[in-house]
């Protein structure tokens, strides 16, 4: 779906990205993480030609973006930014309807789409005629998300979308994004400097440092013992073992032997971290899981 082939980007004399190779399959939520200046935002902006590569190719839906009209390409890709970028002179409804209007939809179709999107991002329809200045941060961010989804693009680019809202709103918005991703199956490229956010939301995590990809893989793999040190430190938050356990479902360590009768039961859908916590609080080294059991040694073996 999105492919970077040996891409370098140079701004003046500084190299923002050097020789990046990366592939993001259709339907994947891919998080780009790294410290500021690592090039994660630049990498994302290559996809809709807000940044041009100085070497290499960027392919979207199999076609090199360099040969595509930038305005047309961008209308086919949703874009959400940290500061929302809502047009302050236009109502919420007009903001959401921006891309459909650019695509020449008729006004009744746009109005219906706006109403559906307000519902999707769980905003009160009464807000439709407000100006963005009258919205709270969380509401504005939801409008930004709705605007990006307006023409039903199959690709969504999100540049630190939840960076400027309070922690509680951020948690809600993350849950919202996870739900929307599950419902719509869009390919999402999410730039974030928050490792927890990356691990929680993404099925593919790409770690960047000084303009190069240092790690690329599933969240649990990047905090494993054999993951590159930089990625493990960045994503592990000082407890990579626990992080990894929290990313793995308890099912993976289950064994068929039945648990002793007095073993506490672990809910299905729990992670290995939940299991470890349950063991710590109950003092039992064996838990009942389904019709089998979960043993401490098996849990610990998965933490590496």
């Amino acid at each position: 779906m999105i492919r970077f082939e040996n891409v370098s980007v140079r701004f003046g004399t500084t190299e923002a990205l050097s020789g990046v190779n990366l592939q993001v399959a259709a339907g994947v939520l891919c998080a780009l993480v790294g410290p500021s200046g690592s090039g994660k935002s630049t990498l994302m902006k290559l996809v809709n030609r807000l940044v041009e590569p100085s070497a290499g190719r960027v392919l979207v839906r199999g076609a090199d973006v360099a040969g595509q009209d930038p305005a047309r390409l961008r209308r086919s890709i949703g874009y959400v930014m940290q500061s929302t970028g809502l047009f302050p002179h236009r109502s919420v409804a007009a903001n959401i309807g921006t891309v459909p209007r650019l695509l020449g939809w008729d006004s009744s179709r746009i109005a219906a789409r706006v109403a559906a999107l307000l519902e999707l991002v769980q905003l009160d329809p009464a807000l439709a005629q407000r100006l963005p200045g009258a919205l709270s941060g969380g509401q504005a961010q939801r409008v930004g998300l709705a605007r990006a989804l307006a023409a039903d693009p199959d690709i969504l680019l999100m540049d630190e979308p939840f960076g400027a809202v309070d922690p509680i709103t951020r948690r809600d918005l993350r849950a919202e994004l996870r739900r929307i991703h599950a419902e719509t199956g869009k390919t999402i490229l999410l730039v974030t400097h928050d490792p927890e956010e990356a691990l929680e939301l993404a099925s593919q995590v790409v770690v960047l440092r000084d303009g190069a990809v240092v790690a690329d893989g599933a969240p649990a793999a990047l905090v494993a013992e054999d993951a590159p040190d930089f990625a493990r430190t960045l994503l592990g938050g000082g407890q990579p073992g626990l992080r990894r356990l929290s990313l793995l479902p308890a099912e993976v360590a289950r064994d068929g032997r039945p648990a002793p009768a007095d073993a506490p039961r672990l809910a299905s859908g729990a992670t290995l971290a939940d299991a470890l916590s349950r063991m710590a609080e109950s003092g039992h080294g064996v838990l009942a899981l389904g019709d089998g059991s979960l043993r401490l040694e098996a849990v610990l073996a998965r933490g590496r």
Partner: protein
Amino acid sequence: MMALLLAAVLALVALLPGWFGGFPPGRLLGLAAGHAGLALAGVVPAALLGLALGVLVTRPSGRALRPAADAFAAAAQAVPPVVAVALAVPAMGFGWGPTILALLLYGIMPVLRATVAALEAVPPEARLAALALGYTPAGALREVELPLAWPLVLGGLRVALVLAVATAAVGALAGAATLGTPIVLGLQNQNQILVLQGAAATASLAFAAEGLLLALAGYAAARGGRSSASPASSAGAAQSRKP
């Protein structure tokens, strides 16, 4: 509305002496019409040129022209209109020509400065969002940048218009029939009443022009606001108009 009220008071001051042996009111009104026409003939091209230059030098491709445009506008305004008129007469002859040229030169800077400042004050994230969503650069300018810049641009237009109306009186020196005519007559004949009438009429016209421009802008904003769907929150609209 303050401007229109002042215009009415000053008009009375200008017209009243006419019935007591001053400059006849009928002729004064005729001169006012000519004066207004002359001022518009100068300020309209100045506004268009100032706007166009302001847009040009804020585009990525025109940024290099910025210092040159600033210098030109400053130089144009530094020349006193009287001098511009005097210098232009030998080349253009008597009549409206020299005055229009002087007003054109004089009016560019306020509009150019205001346009540049206004476009630079557009939130960068709104501009980035416009491009990222798929506006062409021209579309982003028309639909996002200019609407957001408009209140400040309007300020520049007001200044240019008032300057033009006030300065058009100078045209009398080059033989254009303006409200400067009674002033020149009064100065020549040591008749202070004529000078007062011409000055009051000129000021009245300047205030009236400003009032009309604001009324026009308010009307356009109300119509534009209605067509782009935001009747609900006039409070929000007023808030967003604050620069």
